[in-house]
Structures are given as C-alpha cells and as structure tokens.
C-alpha cells in the first residue's frame, strides 16, 4: 500500500519515492531535478533530492530510512515527467528500506487526502 508524508512525498510498497499529484500541481512546471547518488544511505527525513520549478527549489525528503538503489535518470532529460505522471514515469528514486516498520508512521491514502483537502 502506498504511503504518504506531510511533505507530499509518496513511497510505494516496493520503495519507490516521488511527489504527489497535489505537490506537482502546487510547484508548477518542474525544470530541473537533482537526484541522489545510488548507494547513498538516507535517514528518515533526510534531504534526498531537489526539485526545481521555474520559481523556486524544493527539497524532497526521504520518507523512511534506507539505501538508494535506483534513481530515475529520465528526469535529467525530461523533468516535466513529474508534472505529467508524478506517480508513474515521474518517480524520483527507489529505496531499500532499513526498517519497514517506519512505514507505519506515515499517512495512508485517506489521511493524506484529508491533509490536502
């Protein structure tokens, strides 16, 4: 089950992290994405990536602790994928989780929907 953070990241069951449709809508046109290094170890809440819109840079935080095992290289050439398909082709990085238990502390879809109402 996909989980969500209050900072508008999502993490899927297989550890794929991106930003929500609500977040991309708020940011506007994404023009640049700074991806983490594969192999980087992240603690929950660490700054993992940066997404730049025309107007501003926004940090993307790691929803849980883990190791980066893949990044979406397609975003380097086509950052707008985050706008057009934030939950599919616009994913940002993939984590091998340290502790799947951390997922329990995140929001489920209903709680996240409530947050962005």
């Amino acid at each position, binding site marked *: 089950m996909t989980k969500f953070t209050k900072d508008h990241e999502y993490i899927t069951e297989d550890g794929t992290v991106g930003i929500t449709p609500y977040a991309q809508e708020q940011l506007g046109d994404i023009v*640049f994405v*700074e991806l983490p290094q594969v192999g980087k170890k992240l603690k929950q809440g660490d700054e993992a990536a940066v997404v730049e819109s*025309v107007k501003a840079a926004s940090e993307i935080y790691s929803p849980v602790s883990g190791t980066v095992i893949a990044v979406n290289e397609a975003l380097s050439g086509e950052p707008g994928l985050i706008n057009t398909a934030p939950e599919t082709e616009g994913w940002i990085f993939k984590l091998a989780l340290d502790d799947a238990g951390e997922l329990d502390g995140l929001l489920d879809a209903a709680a996240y929907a409530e947050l962005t109402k």
Partner: protein
Amino acid sequence: MAEATQDLKTVLLNDRHVALGGRMVPFSGYSLPVQYPTGIIAEHKWTREHAGLFDVSHMGPSFLVLDQKSGDGQADHEVVAGLVEPLICGDIKGLKPGQVRYTLLLNQEGGALDDLMIARPAAEGWGGALYIVVNAGTKEGDFQRIAAAAAGKATLNRADHCALLALQGPEAVEVMRAVVPEAADLAFMHYGAFDFEGTRLVISRSGYTGEDGFEILVEPDHAGRFWDRLLSDGRVKPIGLGARDSLRLEAGLPLYGHDLDETVSPIEAGLNFAVAKRRREAADFPGAARILDELGGNLSRVRVGLFVEGAPAREGAEIVDQDGNAIGRVTSGGFSPSLNRAIALGFVPPSHATPGTRLQVLVRGRSQAAEITATPFVPHRYVRKPAK
C-alpha cells in the same frame, strides 16, 4: 519571503483572476496571480509567440501636474521637468511630446531608489504634466519624494486606484489595432490618451518582457470591460507574475529590489544610457561625483548575464572564479523557457565581466560551471517605428 496574507490588498480585477483559475500569491503587499492553470512555461511561450495580458495594477502610475500653468506648453513642460530632474539622472526637459523615458530615482550616493518611467503628454493642452510610473514595492517612498520635491509648485495625483495592464508579444499590436486602432500607431516608448467606448485610456508602447507591446491605464469603472475585451481576442491569454519574471529575466532587464537596490549605481547596473548626456555635462544629479567617476572607468562591479550549467542559480548564489575565489553574487536567476537552460543576472568585477569568461556558481554548496554572456539572453523585439 512569506508575507502576511490578511493584510494584502486586492486589485480591481481580483475576481477575474480567481475565476480564471489564477493562483493568487502575496507580492508587494498585493494578492496577485503567479500563474493560471496552463502554467508558467506555457504562459511564457504564449507571450513570446502571441500576446500575453498582465495585470500590473500593483505598480504606481501617477500624474505630476503644475499648479499654475502659463499656457505655453513647452515652457510649462520645462518647469515641471525641472521639479523632478533633481531626483533622477534622466533628461526629462528634453522629452518630446508623447515620449516615454526609462530613468532612475537616485540617492545622494548615486544608488538606485527605484527605476521608473517618466513621460511627457502628447497633447499640447497637457503641457506642464508628467505621467510617472514607479514600482510597487517602492511606490509609497517614491511618491512622497516626488511630491515633496514638487511641493507648492505641482501636485502628484496617484492613479494606482486604476487598473494598469500590460499587453505584450508579437501579436499585441494587431490585438490593439482591433480595440483602439490609433494606439497601434504609437512608436516604441511613446504614449497617448485614447478614447475607448466612453472612457479615456492612457496607453504607452512599452513593457518589460523584451517584446513589442503596450501598457494601458484604465479607469476603475471600465477596467473589467477592457480586460474582457482584450481576452475575447483568441490571440490573447492572461499571464501571471511567474512568466512576467521569466520573460524580463530573458530580456536581461533588471528587477528593482533584486538586481537594483540603494547601493547599486546606474553604471554598475549597466544602465549607462539612463544617465543623460546633458545631465553628465552638468553633473547636476544625485551622486554625480560617484557616477561620473564610474563612467571614467573606476568601477568595482558590473551587472552581467550568466549561462549556468545544471540547476538554476537563484538570487544570492555566490559567484566564484576558476580558482575558487568569491567574486560576486547572483541577483536574479532561474530557468529560461525559451532557451531551455538556467540563466542568471549578477554582479562581478569588470575584470571578469567579458562575455565568454568562465566562472562558477555555488548552488546548495556545490560549484556549477557558468559563463558570462551578453544580455539580453533572448533578443528584444521592440517596434521602434511602426509601419503605418
């Protein structure tokens, strides 16, 4: 940059911006649309290809009018121009009827208090008046300063209760021709007053996007109708502040409060053209000693354009030379939708200001390659002498 939302002023056309899906944000004390649903990049490109309509009613339009006119239009113009010239570095006395001039309000150290437009009415009967448009963030101070300088001789009438619109882009002229035909014949940096269905519009051929276009002052009661009329033309789309900023950045135009401030002189900012020849010879403007010295070559920093590799370098980013020495800062920077790359304006010493000079900028603590480039980044397309 968070501003309190409860104290925000709204513009006359606020309901229209909301109805169009505008995302309202605080800017200079006003709630204004940063973008409409199509987004900044689409709005930016539309303006470069067609015509964009901007609500810039937060700015400060005003009229300075002599209290007692002689009736001789030229003599009255020279008197009213003489009241503002001590505050600025431009030649206002030398304006021909209908001419608009970009100039700077300076402090005694030659630093910029604001950049503004001052225009001489075309109609002889309006001799002894000036149309003055200042920036939103500085307008209270500017208006006080101008009113004080003119006290007892002329009165400054604010017009910022009106709507000020900008219609910009290569198709702006044909859009204007369909609505106010005579205004389409204005030359670049000229203005006039024109009838539009029972009201008078003050229209200048000017703007801050690098494109041909117009800026239009509309009486409050007619603002909605005029906005609707322009938008009913399929060549026109509403454009928010986000694209206004990316357009002016591509055009290499400085933004007050970012690329210009009270420490920056017109020469440092590369606005030498704004220091009029007559004023240089007379050395009779605020900060003349510094500015003339800088014109003589004694300059420690100059405004430059930068191409930035990778992530956009935003305002405040440090500029370093190839040896890692800090030499300046980015004053505005972002992404250029037309060029599909990061661009920036900033200040560096003249020794590092030659186009082609390779430098670096620090973004989030890491250095990225940058190169000095001539501005504008995207060529201006002003129409200096329109074909009749």
